[in-house]
């Protein structure tokens, strides 16, 4: 620091700690509610210390779901969310990396056209074209299936751009050396380019996993069968309307479970997460 003022430093820390507390407060309330009984939660004001029903509530939602709203077990929903997040993340990365490889390393007619076709997808989030996309998926009888849940979301310009950007920084000498050694394009791709892209792949994976896990509108439309619900949809379906009717401890336990996997991914892969966010916006 340029000035060395003890008082100012202390004030900075106090403000930051207060901010961290305010940001974490909703999480704390959720956690407390998930460890108590419905009667305790409905007491006004709700007790603000964790109760003794943690295991009971979490076991109930994981294996049985709620009794008044959606009755599907959250364990099943978490598997659906995981499948959706993984398929979207891996699918996006896979189709984008080979498409950028073609666009950067080959000269062929329509190359520019393809590039622009991918580029415009950047502009239209699924929320905007929701009803016609739903019709297409329904015509292809993909409702209530993992394919219908994930395939329409894996076209991504962001990932294609990121890989294209990265491939253009790979020195030409590497490509030449590979060609002199007699490596074909796919050999070059798997043995040289893919290992070099490892950090970009990891960074994208973190961002896309969170994107996939947190999807809401699309699974809301596509899944009508309880066994296909994702965790985020499950929470919404457990809220039956009316503050006193909803089983809040179970809803809040499900909310904790819905937040845990993506939060862990962010915190454990923090370095790649930050890189992914910053790169994705270039």
């Amino acid at each position, binding site marked *: *620091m340029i*000035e060395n003022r003890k008082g*100012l*430093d202390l004030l*900075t*820390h106090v*403000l*930051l700690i207060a*901010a*961290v507390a305010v*940001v974490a*407060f*909703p*999480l704390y309330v959720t956690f407390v509610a998930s460890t108590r009984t419905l009667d305790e*939660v409905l007491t006004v*004001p*709700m007790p*603000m210390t964790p109760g003794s029903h943690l295991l009971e509530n979490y076991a109930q939602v994981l294996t049985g779901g709620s009794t008044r709203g959606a009755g599907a077990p959250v364990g099943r929903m978490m598997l659906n969310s995981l499948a959706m997040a993984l398929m979207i993340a891996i699918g996006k990365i896979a*189709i984008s990396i*080979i*498409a950028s*490889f*073609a666009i950067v390393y*080959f000269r*062929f007619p329509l190359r520019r056209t393809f590039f622009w*076709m991918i580029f415009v997808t950047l*502009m239209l989030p699924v*929320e*905007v*074209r929701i*009803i*016609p996309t739903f019709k*297409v998926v329904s015509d292809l009888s993909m409702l209530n299936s993992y394919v219908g849940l994930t*395939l329409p979301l894996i*076209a991504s310009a962001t990932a294609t751009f990121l890989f294209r950007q990265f491939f253009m920084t790979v020195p*030409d000498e590497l*490509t*030449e050396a590979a060609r002199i050694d007699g490596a*074909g*394009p*796919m050999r070059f791709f798997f043995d040289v380019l893919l290992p070099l892209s490892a950090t970009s792949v990891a960074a994208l994976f973190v961002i896309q996993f*969170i994107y996939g896990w*947190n999807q*809401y*509108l699309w699974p809301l439309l596509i899944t009508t069968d309880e066994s296909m619900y994702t965790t*985020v949809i499950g*929470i919404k379906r457990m809220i039956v309307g009316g*503050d*006193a009717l909803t089983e809040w401890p179970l*809803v*809040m336990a499900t*909310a904790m479970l*819905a*937040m845990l996997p*993506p*939060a862990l*991914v*962010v915190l454990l892969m*923090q370095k790649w997460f930050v890189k992914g966010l910053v790169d994705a916006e*270039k």
Partner: protein
Amino acid sequence: MGQRVAFGSRWLPYVLVLPQIAVTLVFFFWPALQALWYSFQLQDPFGESTEFAGLTNFEALVHDGAYLASFQTTALFSVLVATLGIAISLGLAVLAHRVTRGTMVYRTLLIWPYAVAPAVAGVLWAFMFAPSIGVVSYVLRQLGVDWNWVLRGDQAMLLVVMAATWKQISYNFLFFLAGLQAIPRSLIEAAAIDGASPVRRFWTIVFPLLSPTTFFLLVVNIVYAFFDTFGVIDATTGGGPAQATNILVYKVYTDGVKSADLGGSSAQSVILMIIVIALTVVQFRFVERKVQYG
């Protein structure tokens, strides 16, 4: 656009772009064209026949008070989310950058809300602020505030703004922190030697140097408020009370899915598409300028 060294193959590049192009065509171009097509069609109430209606759907929207109100609601909502989110995150980033020790600890403690789904964020905030049982509502009542967002539109708006902003702070914070860390220390030191106070240094040096970041975040936050907050709205207010939080993207959904008004909803989709394209163009213009900055 590409490398100087290229591989030669007549068929391989097509095979490689095929999956991406196929997905794009089926789930992107085809639905977008359909939206455009339906927006010019009028459907009879039973959905059995449609006829070409020109701009009728768009005209109806222009004269629809509810649609115009939704435009205003969206404008208010996105301006509030963007300005609040940017101001709070900038403040936090400046504070976290100032401390000699612990910057990374604070970063870790502030970035996790990014991982929370908008719908889950909505549920969390709706629960804390639930009129009868919410813990914050209780405190508000003790303070004499008549808090009931289920009935009062302004309070409902406040609630969705808070939930949406809370989730977005992490993102803005990371970009501001990176921006602050990129400012050369020598600049700040020189100003300090010349006797500029911390506040003066912030407004005359730091803030102008952060302006590309701020502008970029402004666009990103507006896009976020326009489209990604669907889950926040649906999990809390459902557009109510009395349309007070019925933002455009939510209206497309309710009119199209719940009221099955295909033509009207498609016309709304087309208008939203135009807005997104405009925002994207603005963003890319800016990105080009940023590249020139070096």
